[in-house]
Every structure is written in structure tokens, then in C-alpha cells.
């Protein structure tokens, strides 16, 4: 006879899948195709991570994030990054306002970073100084301005976009900030069958908008469920080996890493692997993480954490090549 706790766990897993599916369906009312991208963004939302969406203009990155903000009833803000933007523009600053009884007083005005769902559009157009203003918000979920510290409300999720082709006048994200993103998702072109639907939805009189189907508290409850998914030892070991395999000089690094990688993943990479694999396991109807789940999420998790060195760039290696080779070379650990 099944135990009560097991029954509750099964119910929780089913609830998670239901919430996931309804948010996904709401977003898909606006976004056609791009299923993997939507899955990745939702997974990041459910584990409390941030996503960097990379793709050429016109693929619907911004609309996707905006639709997610509409589907989940949370505070949504959008920051269009420009080269002349300063940290105070996004964090907030003190301004002089008229006082009630006459005269003026200094009042603090919050920046757009104070929200639940932040769309950092074209993040690589801002200077590193402004980009760095995001570091504390993304990791510690707080903003420090002078003596003032603003704690950001959960769920807090930064969804940044960047254009990989137009590099002039842009500032590549520093490694410290890249590492703070749970996923780097490459947004590709839609499939042929998706084009027709896109044209029908976007060229008519009716503007399609996502309906609100969830809210912040529900997202937080889902996070609790995700974090409770147990990880067997062999899957944990596999994730560790994969992350260590990206580091040149480690025992698990294959030849391609030794020769072509400048910097490997940090322990944040292993955390991200496990968290994302938990979501994947729940969605697959399992109650524990498997090595297959880790393999599925590894490209999105490790892509931006592997920095190719000069030799690798000269030979045309990409981080995706390295991760692919890593998955081939690092064997699944076998227990005794």
C-alpha cells in the first residue's frame, strides 16, 4: 500500500506539471514554435534562475518574455539597454521632489530592476559598469545603493536578450555575469510550418496577448516542489564529472578541453545542472534525477560557462562543440 508521503509527492508532481503546462500554453498563445526556448525559460522560472536568450533580431525573444510576464501575474519591467545607460538608471536614484508643505526634499525612486520579471533587452549594448549593476540583483536578489539595500521580491527572474551578430558598439558580458545565468538559450529560426501561424497571428487586426494563468505565489510553491526532487548519487557524480570536465587540467577533461578551453565552469554550473535536471525529471514523470536529465540540460547550462581560448577560436571550435564532446567522453559513473 502506498504511503501517504508518497501520495502527496505524486500529487505535487502532478500539480507541477499542470502549472507548467498551463503557463506554457498561455505563452504559446502568442509565441509560435520555439518550444525548447519556452521550456528553458519556464524551467529557469521554476528554479529561480536567470536566462540569457541569444538570437538574431526578429525571432520573438522580447515577445516571449513579455508574454511570460503576462501569463504569470507578477511585476514585469523592461529595460532597453543602451551605451549611455548608467547603473542608477536601472537600480534607482534619489531625486529632488516637491514636498507637501512646500519646499523640496530628496526622495529615492526605484529603478526598473525592482520587479519580479525583468526583461533586460539587448543587455550587451550597455557598458560593463551598467551590466555589473545586475550582478548583485541576480545573485543576492537585492540592490545596494549607497546605504540603502533593497531586497527584491521573489520570484525574481532576469531574462536578458542579446544579438550575436551585431557586435559593433556592444560590450560582451563579463564572465562573472555570464556565470550568473542559469541557461544560455540559443533562439533559432522558426520551422516552415510555424511561419504561416506567425503571419496569421501578427498581420491581422487582432493582437494576440497571453492571458494571466498563474501568479507569483504559485511559482514559489512550484520551486519548493522542484527543489525537493532527490538526486541519486550516481547522477550527482555525473554532474560533478561533467563540470570538472570543462576545466582544463582536471582528471575528467577530454583532449578538446585541454587544448581549446581557457576557462571552465564554476560550481554554479553543477548547481544549475542539478536544478535544471530536477525540472526535467518531474516533467518526464519521474521522482528522481537521472543521468539522462543531466545530459539533456547540459548544453544550455554549460554553453556560456566554457570560454574558448585563442587556439580554439582559431580552429573554429565553439562551446557547443566542447559540450558535445564532453558528453561523449565523460562516461556515466557506475556504482559498485
Amino acid at each position, binding site marked *: 500500500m502506498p*504511503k501517504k508521503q508518497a501520495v*502527496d509527492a505524486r500529487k505535487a508532481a502532478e500539480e507541477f506539471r499542470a502549472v507548467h503546462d498551463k503557463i506554457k500554453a498561455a505563452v504559446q498563445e502568442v509565441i509560435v514554435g520555439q518550444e525548447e526556448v519556452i521550456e528553458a525559460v519556464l524551467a529557469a522560472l521554476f528554479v529561480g534562475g536567470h536566462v540569457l536568450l541569444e538570437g538574431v533580431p526578429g525571432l520573438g525573444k522580447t515577445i516571449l518574455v513579455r508574454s511570460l510576464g503576462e501569463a504569470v501575474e507578477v511585476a514585469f519591467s523592461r529595460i532597453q539597454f543602451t551605451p549611455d545607460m548608467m547603473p542608477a538608471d536601472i537600480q534607482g536614484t534619489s531625486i529632488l521632489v516637491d514636498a507637501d508643505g512646500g519646499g523640496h526634499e530628496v526622495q529615492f525612486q526605484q529603478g526598473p530592476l525592482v520587479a519580479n520579471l525583468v526583461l533586460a533587452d539587448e543587455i550587451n549594448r550597455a557598458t560593463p559598469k551598467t551590466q555589473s549593476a545586475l550582478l548583485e540583483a541576480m545573485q543576492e536578489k537585492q540592490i545596494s545603493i549607497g546605504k540603502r539595500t533593497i531586497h527584491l521580491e521573489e520570484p525574481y527572474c532576469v531574462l536578458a536578450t542579446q544579438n550575436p551578430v551585431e557586435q559593433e558598439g556592444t560590450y560582451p558580458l563579463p564572465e562573472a555575469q555570464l556565470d550568473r545565468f542559469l541557461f544560455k538559450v540559443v533562439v533559432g529560426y522558426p520551422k516552415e510550418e510555424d511561419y504561416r501561424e506567425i503571419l496569421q497571428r501578427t498581420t491581422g487586426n487582432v493582437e494576440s496577448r497571453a492571458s494571466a494563468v498563474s501568479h507569483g505565489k504559485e511559482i514559489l510553491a512550484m520551486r519548493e516542489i522542484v527543489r525537493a526532487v532527490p538526486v541519486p548519487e*550516481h547522477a550527482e557524480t555525473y554532474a560533478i564529472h561533467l563540470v570538472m570536465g570543462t576545466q582544463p587540467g582536471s582528471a575528467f577533461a577530454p583532449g578538446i578541453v585541454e587544448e581549446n578551453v581557457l576557462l571552465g565552469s564554476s560550481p554554479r554550473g553543477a548547481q544549475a545542472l542539478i536544478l535544471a535536471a530536477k525540472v526535467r525529471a518531474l516533467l518526464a514523470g519521474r521522482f528522481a534525477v537521472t*543521468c539522462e536529465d543531466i545530459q539533456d540540460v547540459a548544453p544550455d547550462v554549460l554553453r556560456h560557462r566554457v570560454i574558448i581560448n585563442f587556439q580554439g577560436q582559431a580552429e573554429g571550435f565553439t562551446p557547443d562543440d566542447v559540450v558535445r564532446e564532453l558528453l561523449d567522453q565523460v562516461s556515466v559513473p557506475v*556504482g559498485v
Partner: protein
Amino acid sequence: MLEADLRMLASEAEGKLRERNYEIALRATLRPALNLGLLLLSLYVLLLLMGRAFGHGLFDYPLWLGLALGLGWPALLLVWRVSAALRQPIGRLQSLRALDEHLDLGERLQTAAEFLDCQRPAGSAIEVGFRQATLEDAAVAALAAKKRGLSLPSLPRSEVPPRLVWAFALLILLTFLLLPRIDATGTTIPIGDDGQGQAQADTEEDGTERDPLAMHQRPREDKEETPQVEAARLEPKRGSGSKEEPESSRQSKGSAGMGRPTESAGSSGASQSTGSPSNQAQTSKAGKASKKKQKKRKTKEEKKRKPNKARKEEESGSTVGKGAAGGSHRSPSASTWSSKDQVSSDEEEALEEEDEVDDETDEQEARGGVQPQLRDRRPPVNRDLSIGFGSGKNPDANGRGGPSEQKKSRGVASLVLGVPIPDHIKGHPNPGKTKITQEKVQPSAEDAPAIPAEARTPAKKAVGPMADPQMNPWMRELVRRYFLSLRSPVGKPGETRVPPSQPQIPKKD
């Protein structure tokens, strides 16, 4: 219950895995083992066919040992790999993992076994629930696995490749071919060595590889040779201690001028010398040496052919002894046997060097006198009109087309004499570090009383010590008299007035 099921499944899967490992090892080793045996036996057969009998030199062991090695090593390899595969430890989790993969259970059995063994306390209630749910799923999967029976997927029955069949057949054939060659004493009989076989092979090989000219001469010589000479000729070939240079190498030296390729001569020598390995080595050395010489001679020939045809004709007509190759002391038509006392290759090279000097002298005389050596001639004057490009300076390019001083202009400008004036003064004013020290000083009021204006009066006090110019005595006297004259009343008797503009300067000695 689940734990017992998992143990049972794991133990059964372990046996299956061991069988599978054995099969994999067998399949993986069979091919290299066969290839290795085939390679060894082929090598032995090849050596036998080449006339290298076992029992000499490098192959100083009987054929039965060779056969044993050829078949034994692969067998040993096979046994070692298979036993290693059988001895490989297979754990419980590994067995369950294999089952998971086979039954597509999503690692449920392995995860359940880990959770059962795990001593780590579960965190929240929901985590405990997930663990229990995992175990429940695993129990269902284990039951299903027991019902389905433990049949691990058998390895794909890959058809034995035809190449392997042929290799195996060839191995058996070679074994049967070699076995009869072992006599009762354990020694081997080289293939093809049945009495006169060796001599017959010699004559056949001689006949096929000798050059046409030698073929023409050889019968005549053979007729002249007595049976004793023939015996003496064959003696050094069969003996292993012969130090004489093989005939083939000598023959290649003599006939190189006739355009016969040295390689063919070398190979004929090798085929003739069926004796000891030392003989073979000598032959190869001589072959290499003759190859080098042949190359040298070819280049020399080309050089000599260039000047004119007449000279070539003259040389070929006058120096018969030199031969067409220009380096040999023997006539191309000379018999190979007539030059047995020929010098060794090193000595011959020295002689060739001398010949080169003599040839050059002869050439100069033929031109009608001693000419300067070509190597002493200077290269022609550079006519490069460029003056270099960018920062790279061409030392020979001065813009004038000939050896002269460095010039930096061309055309009419180069004819104008001019003094080069630098564009700017080099160097930095005030070289060295500049240090600026800033001090913060508070501004403070200072008393600055105004000085009242007044009329200027004569000095009331002594002016102070003044510089005492070192004046000559005559100048001092002159000044004294000048001032005295100014103070004295005009027209006072006894006083003379000396005009200051006309001092009396004494003459220098």
C-alpha cells in the same frame, strides 16, 4: 521486499553480464589474434622463400619454434583478454544499471538501490515522499523485470566477415605449408633448396637482371673460364666470411657510364649473394655508395655537356680511360673480372676529386690560356634603381644603378648639391623627470606698509666693500692722475692736466 528483489535481480544480471563480457572480449580479441598469427607465419614463409634459412643470424631458432610463436602468441593473447574479462568485477549497481538500460526503466532500479543504501537523511517531507515514490516505481519495475525474465540483449550476431574467413584459411594453409619443412632433427629446410636449386636460381636471376652489354660479354668470358675458376667464383658466394666486395657492386661501378640504372645492378647483386647476411650487408653498402657516385657523375655530366658539343667530343675521343661517366678508371667495355683489384669506394672518391681539378685545368687550356676561376668572379653590378621600400633598406639599391655612396634622390634632384638640413632638433628639452609638488597653504593676511616717497639724497654711510679690480700699476696711476686733474683748479701752477681720452699706455716688453 524491494531490497530482496533488487538483490536477486542484480545477482542474476551479474551472471548475464559476465557472459556478455566474455563474448565481447572473445570477439574483440579473435581478430587481432588471428592477424598476429597470420603476420608471423607469413613473415616466416616470406623469409623461407627469400632463401633465409632459420638457424642463421637473426633467425637463429628452428622452424618449430617459429611456428609455436606464430600460433602461441595469439593464443596467449586470447586467453589473457578473455580471462581478464571474466575476472572483471561487476557490482550490484552496475548490474541493475544494465537492467535499467535493457528494460528502459529510466534508471529506476539503480536509483532505488542507491536510495535504499543511502544513509543521507531526507530533507523535507515532500523529499521523503519523492524517495518513497521512486522506490514504489522501482518495485513495480522489478516485478515487471522478473516476469519478463532476465535476458540481457544478446550481442548482435554479426556475420563473420569474409576477410576473417580468408585470414583463417590462409593461416591453416601456411601452417600446413610449413609443417613438412621440419625434419626429424628439428632443423628446417629452406623452401626451394633442393640440391641444384640454389645454383639454378642464381643463373636464372643472373640471366634476367644483367644488363645487355654484360650479357654479351659474359658468354665469351664464361667460355674462357676454366671449371676451377668457376668453382673459385662460386666459393665466396656460399661462404659467409668473404670480405671481398660483391661482384654486383663492382659491376654497377663499371657499367654506370653506360646508363644502366644502379638500382637494378644492386638488386641483381642481392639476388646473387644468397650467402650470409654479412655478404648481404656489404652489398647494400656498396649499392648505396654506387648510387651516390652515380648521382655525382650525372651532375658532372650535365655540367660538361653544357659548354659545347665539340669539347665533349674531344674529351670522349681523347680520354678513353675516363669513360663516359668521367670518373671511372676503367673502360666501359672492360670485363668485371679484370678489375678485381680495384680500389675501395673511399679511395675512388679521392681520385675523383683529383680528376675534377685536372679536368678544370684541361678545360682552361682548351680555352686558350689560363682563365680566372668561375668562383672568383664577382657578381654583376646591381642595377636596381629603387631606393628601398618603407623601413626595409636595400643596401644595394641606391637609386643610381651602380656602386656609389648612398644617395636618396633621383633624377635632377640628385644632381643638385645640397647640405642636408635636419627637419627638427632631436632630443627633449629638460630631459629627466619632472616632479610637481602641491602644497596646501592657507592664505593669510600679511602687513605690507606703504613706503613714503622722498627725495633721493647722497649716501650717508659707506657703500661697503667694493670689488677691487686687479688693475695694472700704470692704469691705477692713470686713474689717480685723472681724478687729481679734475679736482685741481684750472691753470694752477705746477699741475699738468692729462686728458682722459689719451692715456699713455706703456709699450709692452
